[in-house]
């Protein structure tokens, strides 16, 4: 009897979703870099004074004109189609906001403002189905944090000490609670100052269009150092208030990753690759999993797949291709 005959195989394209995710992260980040340049170009066109521009400004104008001439005749108006960042932005007339922005603003003003509430509706609905997908697929800070993880790995290989401490995962819910309480107490949306995606979007805009980084850049560098020296992806896992909100919203998400125990050989590559330090090998994903699909991509025996369930799959024990299972079930034999 062959074990691999009747076992389910994951859909082949899911192994490549991790590349798609990197593409998505890169596109979001590239947009955040491109939008300030587009904005600067728009101000130059609106001023109708090409001759008065400095040589460097003329160069920027020319480059942007070549890039956008094919799409628009009126840059000052048409290039407004996509504006803003992941904290709040407008996308072809559709206003989208981070649920944390809405929560923070509601706490700061102590009232509901329906039009703004509605801008977070689409992200919230997606989160209810896909869980913390924002953290893995869109967040511009994730792009930098994951690159930083790679740098830390190289540093560790070169013999530097890289921190991988573990803290209580519930710390971030306390950050969210304290943040909302402080917002209500001070009457300003404090979360915007410590929420990495908001900081990255804003600081890129400040640096490119307004001529210099703001205070948030220092904080963001601090979080990078925290990730490198104290805990891998530590800010996202233990401190990020937005991650906490997404985790809570995505607690009963429908789309989950599941281990196919028949295909698993207990190699634990999934645990090693998991940015959030979860335990896919023992079927522990929880509300922290952001469906980033890194474990699906890395699995050498195709034992990871998606499943539609509101709760995690119950613990399935050791993988059937692993030594531990085969020692316990010698009668089933190797295929």
């Amino acid at each position, binding site marked *: 009897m062959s074990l691999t005959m009747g076992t389910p195989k994951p859909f082949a394209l899911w192994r490549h979703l991790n590349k798609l995710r990197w593409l998505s992260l890169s596109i979001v980040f590239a947009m955040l870099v491109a*939008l*300030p340049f587009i*904005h*600067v170009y*728009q*101000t130059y066109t*609106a*001023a109708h004074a090409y001759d008065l521009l400095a040589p460097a400004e003329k160069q920027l104008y020319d480059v942007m004109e070549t890039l956008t001439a094919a799409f628009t005749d009126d840059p*000052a108006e048409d290039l*407004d189609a996509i*504006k*803003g*960042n992941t*904290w*709040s*932005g*407008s996308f072809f007339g559709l206003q989208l*906001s981070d649920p944390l*922005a809405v929560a*923070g*603003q509601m706490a*700061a*003003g*102590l009232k509901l*403002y329906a*039009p*703004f509430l509605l*801008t977070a509706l689409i992200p919230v609905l997606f989160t209810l189905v896909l869980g913390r997908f924002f953290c893995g697929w869109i967040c511009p800070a994730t792009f930098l944090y994951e690159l930083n993880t790679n740098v830390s790995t190289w540093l560790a290989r070169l013999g530097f000490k890289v921190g991988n401490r573990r*803290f*209580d995962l*519930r*710390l*971030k819910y*306390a*950050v969210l*609670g*304290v*943040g909302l309480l*402080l917002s209500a107490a001070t*009457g*300003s*949306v*404090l979360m*915007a*100052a*410590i929420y990495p995606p*908001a900081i990255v*979007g*804003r600081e890129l*805009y*400040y640096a490119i*269009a*307004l001529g210099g980084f*703001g*205070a*948030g850049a*220092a*904080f963001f560098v*601090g979080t990078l150092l925290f990730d490198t020296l104290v805990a891998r992806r530590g800010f996202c896992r233990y*401190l990020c208030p937005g991650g906490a909100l997404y985790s809570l919203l995505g607690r009963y998400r429908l789309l989950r990753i599941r281990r196919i125990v028949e295909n698993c050989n207990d190699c634990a590559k999934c645990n090693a690759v998991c940015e959030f330090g979860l335990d896919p090998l023992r079927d522990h994903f929880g509300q922290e999993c952001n469906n980033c699909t890194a474990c699906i991509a890395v699995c050498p025996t195709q034992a990871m797949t998606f499943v539609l369930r509101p709760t995690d799959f119950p613990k399935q024990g050791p993988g059937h291709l692993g030594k531990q299972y085969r020692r316990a079930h010698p009668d089933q034999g190797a295929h």
Partner: protein
Amino acid sequence: MQRRSALQRLIRGAALLAAASLPYGVARLLAPEARAQNHNREHNREHKRNHIRPPGALKDDAAFVAACIGCGLCGEVCPPRCIRFHDRDGGGKVNTPFINPEDKGCTLCNKCMAVCPTEALIETPLDEIDMGIAQIDRAACYPWVDRGICGACVSVCPLGERAIGFEMWNQYRPIIKDGCVGCGLCVEVCPEPSLPIWIVDRAEGTVARHTV
């Protein structure tokens, strides 16, 4: 035994709370509020405002700060790029928008009001925009002290006749009228370095006296 574990849990909870509020401490440290207040007081004393909220902003500044999420959209759609953001001097106001008319005035294009996702900037008809009102220091403005002919402020005003004009008996001396909404373009173009024209709160303006 039970009491001890309860105590431990209490201590652990307190430590959790302290660790959780650490980022806020760092954020507040990076944005000290004390300096910002002194800064503002100094400007209030002179009745000179160089941190004007964008057009259509909520009148009550505390309500504005509560409503603003610091997304930067208003600045990103602003054609003359006059909207700037409070940075380290902001305290609780950090990342909220302002216009410094000495630097660049607002052209009243309405884009920022249209794009604001929250109720911080409300779409307001041109006549009802109230960012302040321009005021001319008649002891420093060149035409007013008979040092020359200028008229830069009058020629740049987007509202024209209802906001600014010339005095009846001396057609070189600019006067502010009630229709002024405080966009600050006149402050931007004023060639006199001491800026004899600036934006003040409407309540502090002395339009009545100056137009007589």
